[in-house]
Structures are given as C-alpha cells and as structure tokens.
C-alpha cells in the first residue's frame, strides 16, 4: 500500500494525458477511459487512508500527508462524478483541470514537505468532531476545485454560450461545496474547538483564513445573485476563493503559527 500514492499519481497523469488528447478533437467527444482511471486513483488514495487509519487506530486525517491524500482522492472523485453526471454541461476542460489539481496534490503529498511517518494523533486531535471538521472541509474544497477550473475557463472563454455553460458549472460547484465547507470548516470546527479548548473561536490564523475563504464564497454567491450571469467579477471571486483555500492549507501551515500548526 506504500506505493499506492505513486500508482494513483501515474493513473492521474494518464487520465490527464488522455483528456488533453481529446481536448483538441473537433467532434468534442470525451475519452471513455479517464473517468475510470480517476475512480481507480481515488480508490487507491482512499485505500491508503484506510490502511493508515488502521495503523494509527484513528481516521487518518490529522497529518499533512494524510490530509493531502484524502483531499486528492476527493478531487479525483469529484472529477469522476462530473464526467458521469447528466444535469450540467460537460465541459472537458473542467475534468482535465480537476485531474491536474488532484495529481498536483498527490505530488505535494509525496514531496519532502509532507512528512510520511504515520503518527497517531495527540489528545486534542482525538475527537469525532475533528474528523467531521476535516472530512467535510475537504469535501467542500473538492467542489471548489471544480468551481476554480470552471471559473478560469469562463474567464478565458471567448464564446458567450461557453461562458454561460462554465458559469453554470462554477455556480453549481460552489452551491454544492459551500454548505459542506461551512459545516466542516466553521460549524464542526467551532464545536470541536469549544470541546477541546473551551472557546468557539480564537482568531487563530487558520480560523481567520477559513472565515476569509467563507466570506469570499459568500461574496461570490451574493454577486452571482445580483449580477446573474453578467460580468467577469463573480468568476474572478470564485478563483480568489479557491486561492484562499490553498493559502489556508499551505500558507498558514508553513508560514504562520497557531493552534492549527500541528497539521
């Protein structure tokens, strides 16, 4: 199972290459294999999480490597689900972009900046609320990956109809991810903090950045509500929102200290 992330990475790269090859076809047909490669990669990554969970006797979500592996699995699953769904316009670039993000997350997980040692959690992290906090936050952020790629494509698209399709994908991904992210990052996070330290909120840098991310997506939803599909501003805000999630994870972990500095 130690080689699972490497194998998953190879599958993701293969899926991305296949999708890239089909991006340039004129008949706009999607490749038939990449969804299953994405699913296989996601299952391998989830398998890694399950094995580590048994090894440490607790859901493996408390370390940087474990979080990245779980997050990458969810992004791959989101890309897989997007390819199979029939309610939204299927834009090949969205699936491709999400696959690249999933592969990048696995690459970072495998790099020296993420320690690989399977360590059981310290007392403050041994909480069911923490598991909900982390799991829901990453599920929400996996949808934000799709919204980020769709928003970037929307900003780059020259065709009005394509822009409208990308806008619809961006909005649906944010609409799905926002309540899940809010529940995980803010509601379950606050309940866990109260149980562990007796304070709902301490303005720790990670908490503040989670709130900033939430405010940015709140801003997106309100802008989208008032502007409907007009203008580039909502798409720009959706891109900023995702960049905030990236900084909340990497920037705060590596550049700032606080209650969350363990992972």
């Amino acid at each position, binding site marked *: 199972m130690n080689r699972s992330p490497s194998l998953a990475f190879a599958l993701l790269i293969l899926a991305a290459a296949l999708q890239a090859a089909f991006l340039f076809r004129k008949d706009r047909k999607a490749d038939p294999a990449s969804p299953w490669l994405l699913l296989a990669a996601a299952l391998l990554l989830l398998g890694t999480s399950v094995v580590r969970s048994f090894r440490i006797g607790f859901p493996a979500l408390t370390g940087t490597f474990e979080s990245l592996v779980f997050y990458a699995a969810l992004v791959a699953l989101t890309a897989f689900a997007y390819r199979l769904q*029939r*309610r*939204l316009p299927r834009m090949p670039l969205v699936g491709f972009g999400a696959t690249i993000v999933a592969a990048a997350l696995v690459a970072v997980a495998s790099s020296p900046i993420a320690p690989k040692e399977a*360590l*059981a959690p*310290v*007392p*403050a992290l*041994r*909480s069911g*609320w923490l598991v909900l906090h982390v799991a829901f936050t990453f599920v929400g952020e996996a949808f934000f990956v799709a919204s980020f790629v769709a928003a970037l494509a929307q900003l780059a698209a020259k065709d009005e109809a394509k822009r409208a399709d990308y806008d*619809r994908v961006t909005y*649906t991904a944010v*609409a*799905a991810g*926002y*309540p899940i992210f*809010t*529940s995980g990052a*803010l*509601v379950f996070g*606050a*309940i*866990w903090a*109260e*149980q*562990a*330290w*007796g*304070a*709902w*909120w301490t*303005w720790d*840098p990670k908490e*503040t*950045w989670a*709130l*900033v991310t939430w*405010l*940015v997506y*709140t*801003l997106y939803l*309100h*802008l989208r*509500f*008032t502007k409907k599909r007009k203008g580039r501003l909502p798409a720009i805000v959706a891109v900023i929102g995702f960049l905030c999630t990236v900084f909340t994870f990497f920037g*705060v972990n590596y550049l*700032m200290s606080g209650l969350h500095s363990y992972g």
Partner: protein
Amino acid sequence: MRKLLSFFTSMRLAIVLIAYLALAGTLATFVPQGEEPAFYASRYPRLLAALVVDSGFSGFFRSWLFILPAFLFFANLSACTIRRLSREIGKKERRRHGPDLLHFGLMILVVGSILSFSGREEGFVRLAEGDAVELPGGGLLRLERFEHERYADGRPLEWTSEVSVSGDAARKVEAYPIRVNHPLRLGRYAVYQVSHDVEPVLAVLGPGGAAGSLARGEELEAGGFSLLFLGAEDGGTGALVLLKDAAGPGKSFRVAAGEAVGPFRIATLAVRDLSGLKAVADPGYLVVLVGLLIAAAGMFFTFIRKIKDFRP
C-alpha cells in the same frame, strides 16, 4: 426613514461589507496581533508602525475597524432577513425559507458571540493528585486521580483527570473523568483538560519527626530552621535548597537524595504529574450553539433547493 431602510436592506451594502471584512481579515493575519507598540516600532518603518498601533490594527478583531463593519453587517443582515421573510410569508406557493433560516442563524450567532465576548470568564489551574481548588460560585473541585496514557513512542495518547466536586449540593459530582475533548459541564461553568506538566517534589525529614513533601517554592520549618526548595538541577538528580535559621539570611546548597542539610535529610527527589485544567463560564454558549445549528440547517435547505432547481 425610507432612505435609511433602503440603505440597510441593500444587497450592495452586504457585498461591500463582506468584501471589506474578507480583505481586512486577510491583512490582519499578516500583522502580529496584540503586541506592545514597541514591537511594531522595532519591526516596521515608523509611519507604518504608528498607523498599525493608532488605527487599532494591532488588535484588529477588538477594534472599531472590525466591530463597526461587523455591527453594520448585523444590521444589514437583520433588515434583509425581516424584509425577505415578510415577502416569503406573503407568497401563496413556492415559499423558500432556507435563506431566512440561514440569516436568522447568523443573527443568533452574532448575538451569542457578543454575549460570549463580553461576559466570558476563564481561569487556569495546575493540580496534583489530592489538590483541590475552589470553584467560582461555590463548591470545591478536587483532583482525585490523574492518568497520563502514552503511545509506544512516548507521545501523549490521553490525559484523564478524575475529579469530584463537593460543598455545593447543586453541583455535586463524584469521580467524573475529564479528558481532552470531554469537559465537565457544571451549570454555567465547564472544566476542560487542556495540558499536562510535571514538577519536582522533594521529600524531606526534619528534626523532631517533622516531614514534608515540598514543591518548588515551598518550605518546611522545624527546630528553628527552615528549608526552602528552590528547584531541581542536574536533570532531576539534584536539588537546590535554601537553609535558613532565625539569625541570618540563609545559605543555598546543592543536594541529592540521602544527603543532609543542617538538621534536615533529603529522603527522595521525585517528579509528580500536574493536570492543567481550564474553567470557563461562557454566557453565550447555548446561544452560539443554537445559532450554528440553525445556520447550518438553513444553508442545507437553501442549497439543496437550488441544486434541485437545476434542470438537465
């Protein structure tokens, strides 16, 4: 009046305030919060340091830079909620109360946060087994037993403080295990397991059968002498003590277990576990919890409805 009402119910105001709070909150994470003016003066150019301190940015989340926009946001949210709710109630069909519930939950959350912020009390104690501390509002909390479980590699797995509360009939507790993430709730107070520490303890035998177990800073008096335990040394194998008699200022000695100092003999030098407990009274506890749950429920109703609205 109409203008004021339309100002407070404006979506544009909501957008401006959300954008401001996001941007200012971001900047605040890059400026160390709650430091002394000298700290900023040593780190930033003079003008910027003065700006950070004088504007209140050095304590952003307690300053008017945050509180005033947050208050305006609350007023805006309340006005929009009332207006939206009355409009929805007037509808004959396709009523959507998800956003109302979400906004109402956020309003409750803000009220709970203000209660929490303004009336919160907290205190921290470190107790050894057998120690007791008086609880605010009456009652005595005693640490009956402390257990420190470790993983095989020595890292902490769990800290458990078994406590009892006596002296207040309304808050009597027998053998309650407080663990991290498992506080003891006693009326308006909650007691949390937040840390673990160890301290050296010196067992001393004195003249005339006197004996004492001294923590750092404690002293034993016997036969006209006193022995003050100043602390452990040499990795815990030696102790620094101060021997005094009535005549002089005293003299310090480095001693080990089994050695004598004046009329005293050091029996053992050991370490004991200390449990770090935090007591918190949070008047906003229930209000915040209810606000969080209502906001979460409102959010799900809103977005499940929106996703259902999408047609293939």
